[in-house]
């Protein structure tokens, strides 16, 4: 039934908005307009329900600016029950973290070590929960401005953990473990590329490919040089990435030229 489909569409669009009267009125107004248009299109017997649905949704146009304004109203946000629920959730979680810390510390007698382990672990859990919610919301609304950044932040965190483990828990030491850091820009490019392919269903922009491959070769050179101690002539590895990237760019541009000239 069209009414239910429109309602579901609007539910998705308005999901991240506070339960304000203004948002509710706007939603109802859009639903009224959609149904008015749909009823008129129904009179044209040649159109299927699917065609009517898509035509009506298309007629709405881009109202994301209005949604942003409704979402960014701080007074509405404070009155929003979901906002209050999140605040209560955060407070409860903080109290649980303290309780877990005290329990672990009493149990083990390691007050300092427990603090180092329990609090970052609890912070990690809340970070995973919050970012998962944002990515889920982005996917529902098909807006991915932050998705690449969130995935990238995980690569940075994992690299940091890997550095501390390698530097202080293995014989490698910090003098060599630093070589993990130059991989961070590459990981950020990879996260961005993943977002384009998986979430946005689009091609990876050429700039990301060029920068990512070039940076990967630099990071790979540093890694090889640090491990082997051969700083020369392993620097040749650093040239590999830009060369591959430029060849890929030439092939890509040639294909575009061919497609345009057809």
């Amino acid at each position, binding site marked *: 039934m*069209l*009414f239910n489909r*429109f309602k579901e569409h609007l539910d998705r669009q308005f999901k991240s908005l506070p339960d304000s009267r203004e948002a509710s*009125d*706007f939603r*109802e*107004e*859009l*639903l*009224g*307009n*959609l*149904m*008015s*248009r*749909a*009823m008129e299109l129904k009179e044209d017997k040649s159109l299927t329900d699917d065609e009517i649905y898509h035509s009506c949704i298309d*007629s*709405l*146009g*881009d*109202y994301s*600016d*209005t949604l942003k304004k409704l979402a960014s109203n701080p007074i509405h946000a404070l009155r929003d029950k979901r906002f209050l629920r999140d605040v209560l959730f955060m407070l409860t979680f903080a109290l649980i973290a303290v309780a877990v810390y005290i329990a672990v510390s009493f149990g083990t007698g390691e007050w300092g070590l427990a603090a180092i382990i329990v609090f970052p672990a609890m912070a990690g859990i809340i970070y995973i929960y919050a970012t998962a919610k944002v990515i889920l919301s982005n996917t529902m609304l098909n807006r991915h401005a932050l998705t690449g950044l969130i995935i990238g932040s995980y690569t940075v965190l994992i690299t940091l953990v890997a550095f501390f483990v390698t530097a202080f828990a293995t014989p490698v030491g910090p003098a060599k473990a630093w070589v993990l850091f130059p991989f961070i820009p590459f990981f950020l490019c990879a996260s961005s590329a993943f977002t384009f392919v998986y979430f946005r269903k689009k091609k990876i922009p050429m700039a990301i490919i060029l920068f990512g491959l070039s940076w990967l070769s630099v990071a790979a050179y540093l890694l090889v040089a640090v491990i082997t101690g051969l700083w020369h002539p392993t620097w040749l590895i650093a040239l590999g990435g830009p060369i591959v990237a430029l060849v890929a760019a030439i092939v890509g541009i040639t294909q575009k030229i061919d497609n345009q000239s057809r």
Partner: protein
Amino acid sequence: MAASGDILRGHTDTIILRILSEGDSYGYEVAKKIIEGGEGLIDIKDATIYVAFKRMEEEGLITTYWGDGVGGARRKYYKISPKGREVYLSDIQTWKEINRILNNLLIGGN
């Protein structure tokens, strides 16, 4: 060919006021009247109309009320206010003047 962005720029509010001066109306009906009056040159989305409605309501040019709906959804009706009628008449005078000047500049002869 629909070039609504260029053609309508700066005139959306006046067009809506003109439509509402003929009787109360709701979003879809206003959009439909604009598209039909645009003779294929103008396309306008509900989002554009809504933004204009919102602005005009804040300026006191129009008022709103909920009316009976269709298919289970209510319609939000818009009504021109006395201030809206004044602004409309003033806009029309301005338009006539600009139209005369532009005619002179573009076509010449006067």
